[in-house]
């Protein structure tokens, strides 16, 4: 390993990347577009969901129920005069959940009073969800049930003249790390994982396959440069560009989306830099197994499907079947996204994250070892 040769290789790669306007614009544009897209558009919403309300009862009790629903900030109730209008809004997708309060709602509270037998009439409400929007409906369900039950309990309490109190236990909820349950930080911290995994693999794979096809890779291999030098000469300049990308993304996320890391800025950049190396090595391996750039691209695109869906970027891993949960641990991206969320949202420090970092190092050693072998083998 000679520093002089490595320096030459680094210089060559830097110039090649820098003078290729297309790669440069991809490197800048894709992260920004992904960040803004995921941050603005695709972040999951758990506050201010539109809720259609048809209040046929129109009594203090029913108005209290509706007021309680809007007070939590979870729902924005919209009144509908008739049931038909309400159902129409639900079908057309204007609202994704609807509450129907029947005319005898308040009366049933009164009737419940002296009749504690199991068969007694409990006041009823009907809740309709647009099941076509399953995630939204699921969110709305959890909240609506809790809110209606607690309001109902306090209403029933008021009607009761005394004796037993079955008002239930109030649950005072506080969300740590993200008190408003804003979806944007979650998406932003995950986007780092997605962009870095996808782009790094793609750019290295394509750049090396193109070199192989143009014949310049063979030229590299007949120079005195060793495999390690070629590997580093390839990985380090690209890695530097991606680290710069990470910093740019962090700034944009902070300035435009107001998402700054709660943890250490420097620590996050360091972790990301290491992850970029791991991911670039993976790109090298892809390139070794592809004859054309197109094939490498297709492989990366296929690889990006499990990457998005299994790494916990969009769907929580714990909701998956046990076997798949094990598989997700084999994706480096899973660990990086966990690290990124921990640093961004929970302000975790290096010591708490040691196990995850250990996983990444392990992947790094294995993948870089493989990448070295592919460079030598093709020589």
């Amino acid at each position, binding site marked *: 390993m000679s520093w002089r040769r490595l320096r030459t290789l680094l210089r060559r790669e830097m110039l090649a990347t820098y003078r*290729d306007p297309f*790669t440069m614009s*991809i490197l800048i544009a894709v992260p920004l577009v992904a960040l803004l897209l995921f941050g603005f558009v695709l972040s999951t919403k*758990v506050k201010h969901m539109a809720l259609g309300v048809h209040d046929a009862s129109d009594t203090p009790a029913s108005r209290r129920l509706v007021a309680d629903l809007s007070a939590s900030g979870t729902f924005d109730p919209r009144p509908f005069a008739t049931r038909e209008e309400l159902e129409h809004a*639900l*079908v057309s997708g204007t609202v994704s959940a609807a509450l129907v309060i029947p005319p005898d709602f308040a009366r049933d509270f009164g009737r419940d009073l002296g009749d504690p037998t199991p068969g007694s009439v*409990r006041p009823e*409400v*009907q*809740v*309709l969800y647009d*099941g*076509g929007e*399953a*995630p939204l409906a*699921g*969110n709305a*369900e*959890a909240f*609506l*049930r809790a809110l209606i*039950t607690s309001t*109902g309990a306090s*209403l*029933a309490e008021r009607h009761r003249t005394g004796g*037993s*109190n*079955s008002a*239930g*236990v*109030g*649950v*005072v*909820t506080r*969300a*740590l790390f993200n*008190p408003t*349950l804003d*979806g944007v930080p979650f998406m932003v911290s995950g986007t780092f994982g997605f962009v870095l995994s996808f782009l790094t693999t793609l750019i290295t*794979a*394509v750049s090396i396959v193109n070199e192989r096809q*143009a014949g310049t890779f063979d030229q590299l291999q007949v120079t005195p440069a060793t495999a390690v030098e070629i590997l580093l000469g390839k990985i380090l300049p690209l890695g530097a560009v991606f680290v710069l990308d990470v910093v740019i993304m962090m700034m944009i996320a902070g300035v435009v989306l107001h998402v700054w890391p709660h943890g250490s800025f420097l620590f996050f950049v360091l972790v990301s830099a290491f992850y970029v190396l791991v991911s670039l090595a993976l790109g090298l391996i892809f390139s070794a197994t592809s*004859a*054309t750039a*197109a*094939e490498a*691209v*297709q492989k990366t*695109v*296929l690889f990006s*499907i499990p990457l998005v869906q*299994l790494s916990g970027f969009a769907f*929580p891993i*714990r*909701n*998956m079947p046990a076997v798949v949960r094990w598989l997700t641990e084999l994706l480096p991206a899973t660990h990086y996204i*966990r690290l990124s969320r921990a640093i961004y949202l*929970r302000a*975790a420090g290096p010591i*708490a994250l040691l196990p995850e970092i250990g996983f990444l190092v392990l992947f790094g050693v294995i993948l870089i070892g493989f990448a070295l072998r592919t460079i030598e083998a093709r020589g």
Partner: protein
Amino acid sequence: MTRAPGRFWSNVKAVAYKETRILRHDRAFIGVIVAQPIMMLILQGAVLSNKPANVPWAVLDWSRSAVARRFVADVEATGYFLPPQSVASYDEGRRLLQQAEALAFVVIPETLARDVERGQPRVQLLLDGSDPLSAARVGGYIAQVGAALDLGTDTSQERRPEVPVRLAGPVDIRQRFWFNPTLADRRFFLSALAGMLLTNLCLSVMSLGLVGERESGTYEQMLALPTSSLEIVIGKVAPYVAVSYALMLVSTAAAGVIFGVWPRGSWVTLSVATLPFVLASLCGLLHPAVVRPLGRDLPLPVHAPGRARDRRALPPPVVPDRAPPDHRARRRSRRRRRADARVDPALRRLAAGDPLADEAAAGLVSSEEAW
């Protein structure tokens, strides 16, 4: 120009036939077509879900009362949670949240039993807000269990374990999920599967179109044939439309057979609605103005799968050694091509060297690759 009306369809058929033959030899393309739907079907049908499951949580029970135990048992019985971890101190619980080893942390105050008597029992719930979707739902479930907890006169008696927990609150909530009665996330995902697959297909296909022809130099040959541009476009698009329909029908049928998610509406409407979508995606992407700037060494799925090597049967391209023309020159060349439409094929072939020239200059059509 007088042409027999039958010529049109026979030309279209010829171009479509040629396109299909090429497609059949494109292993990467076929791999993508086959692997992608299987992968997506498994992931979206059986793996992904937004419904909370296996939620890790911690309990700090200072009251050690029957009510507290019943509350914890009721939360666990909802089926969304793992068995709770008992912690001895507030700090320990917060540490579990910090390390993402617990998503929810319930703190039951010492005075809970007394508060029940007084009528205002409260517990504290701390959530890990870093995953807002899960946190919100879990918070909702726990709050609901609390609100529905029966604190009747029999607080002294433990509930027998075999009695199922009935989440009956003071209000009877009659819920109904329209269009998706069991609120399965699977239905939501799988109904969009065909759309996702077709979008991906169109992306992988687009460079097979005119860019691929330009790169391998067969575009000029096609122009030299007695086919009109309309015939070429229709002939080139038709096989992909067929593939798209096959993909759509197979993925929809597979979702139905394997996961029981059949379309509720009419198949005819679905098929009719698919056509403009596919045509818009394909034609938009075939258009040179869209494809050219993308089709350079861009690392997105626009490279023709097997762009060079699988076309060995085709003759080598004309690669004039020229500098890349600017936009104006490109437009000029396109205009010239149109004007030359009726010129002798041999002459036209020379004139049409332009579009290839800039590809060559971009280093894409190296001689090794073209052969």
